[in-house]
């Protein structure tokens, strides 16, 4: 199917809020949080009070729906077959350039300063020395021509290459029995995936698209590409990888999206 024109969505809002709105109301927001009115209420709950009333936003309903979402995480973990490979495609079907998607527009991408960039490692990893891009390029590469499926419903075929995440985790002495692998990107963006999906043979630390370094809007210099998760679990502009047994709530999960998001 062809790549479609963006529509209204959290992933690509058409009208961005004026930044002055935030500046003007910063004092009020800080005052409110000081009084701990919002304490214990997820940001979504706070948002719902401003946007009006909808049954899915009442916090008790949210609690129930989020606990079902947590149950669905467990079911998906149980359904996940570590040896099941996603379908791959011929190079002739690759869409170039890849489709841009983020929660902001392409003009608002904040490029990584490559001169100071290093991949930082933290958590349950033996060798935490940071990695330069050259070090990463020197690792054996794997190419994947796989479908990117967005939670919104669209998909496209992309050609990604880079070291397998599993090989990388083994090389740095990560605890492979840990539960989560976190990816910290630009702008305090964080997403975590389960270790089984991290070790899947079609999960790579992508540095190239169609044989060329990934373009800035698509995650340069380093992004995750896994064939076994929805698009939003493939963070771009990675700055740090953390291996941990502690569940930290990621960017999309804070807003109510499902954590496992497995395909």
């Amino acid at each position, binding site marked *: 199917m062809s790549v479609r024109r963006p*529509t209204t969505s959290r992933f690509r809002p058409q009208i961005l809020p004026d930044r002055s709105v935030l500046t003007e109301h910063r004092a009020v927001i800080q005052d409110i949080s000081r009084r701990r009115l919002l304490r214990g209420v997820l940001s979504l709950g706070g948002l719902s009070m401003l946007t009006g009333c909808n049954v*899915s936003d009442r916090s008790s309903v949210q609690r129930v729906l989020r606990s*079902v*979402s947590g149950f669905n995480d467990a079911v998906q973990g149980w359904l996940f077959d570590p040896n099941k490979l*996603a379908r791959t495609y011929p190079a002739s079907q690759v869409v170039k350039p890849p489709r841009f998607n983020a929660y902001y527009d392409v003009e608002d991408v904040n490029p990584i300063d490559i001169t100071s960039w290093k991949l930082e490692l933290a958590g349950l990893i033996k060798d935490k020395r940071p990695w330069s891009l050259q070090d990463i390029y020197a690792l054996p590469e794997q190419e994947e021509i796989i479908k990117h499926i967005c939670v919104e419903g669209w998909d496209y075929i992309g050609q990604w290459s880079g070291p397998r995440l599993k090989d990388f985790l083994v090389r740095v002495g990560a605890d492979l029995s840990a539960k989560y692998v976190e990816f910290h990107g630009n702008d305090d963006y964080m997403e975590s995936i389960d270790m089984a999906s991290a070790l899947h043979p079609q999960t790579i630390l992508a540095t190239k698209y169609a044989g060329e370094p990934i373009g800035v809007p698509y995650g340069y210099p380093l992004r995750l590409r896994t064939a076994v998760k929805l698009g939003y679990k493939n963070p771009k502009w990675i700055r740090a990888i953390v291996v941990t047994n502690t569940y930290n709530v990621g960017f999309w999960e804070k807003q109510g999206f499902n954590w496992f998001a*497995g395909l």
Partner: protein
Amino acid sequence: MPIAAPRMHPLVLRLMHWTNAFAMIVMILSGWKIYNDDVLFGILHFPDDIVLGIWAQHALQWHFFGMWILVVNGLAYLAYGLASGRFRRLLVPLSPREVLQQVIDALRFRLAHADLVHYNAVQKTLYIGIILVGIVQVISGIALWKPVQFSFLISLFYDFQGARLVHFIGMSVIVLFLLVHVTLALLVPKTLVAMLSGGPRIEPR
């Protein structure tokens, strides 16, 4: 003491019917919101006033909550229908000639509906049809949820977008069925009352 004959719609059946009605409405309204984020047909958007969920994530939460009710209740309904003989009693036999004749009658507003406990051929067709569509809807839904783990289900629909299209068409058929079903139930209110209170007692044959 004689035991009273069972009602046309036993309590367990009525519970399953209304549970299904709730789950279906949750699935349809939240599905519309999910659809809006990436429309299949350029001009077709569902107005925000009639969908379930402010943003897609809430709609997704509802959809993946409703699916459990729909599937568990649906399986219970199929098991009950087959084991109790309800499907055999109400839905078969069904002859194409009878269906054709009755569709013509129905379009002339002459369809007989005097006998509550025996479904006419049009009813049988609609009820069998909607059960089959429900099954297709669950299969295409599972394919969309797990296109890698259940890739064999995706191949039934050609590809991921094919499964989306089938899932959308299935929804459309269910909505059309609902319109006809609810209209007819309101035109012949005793059918609606029967689904609430159980309806007439049926003597065993």
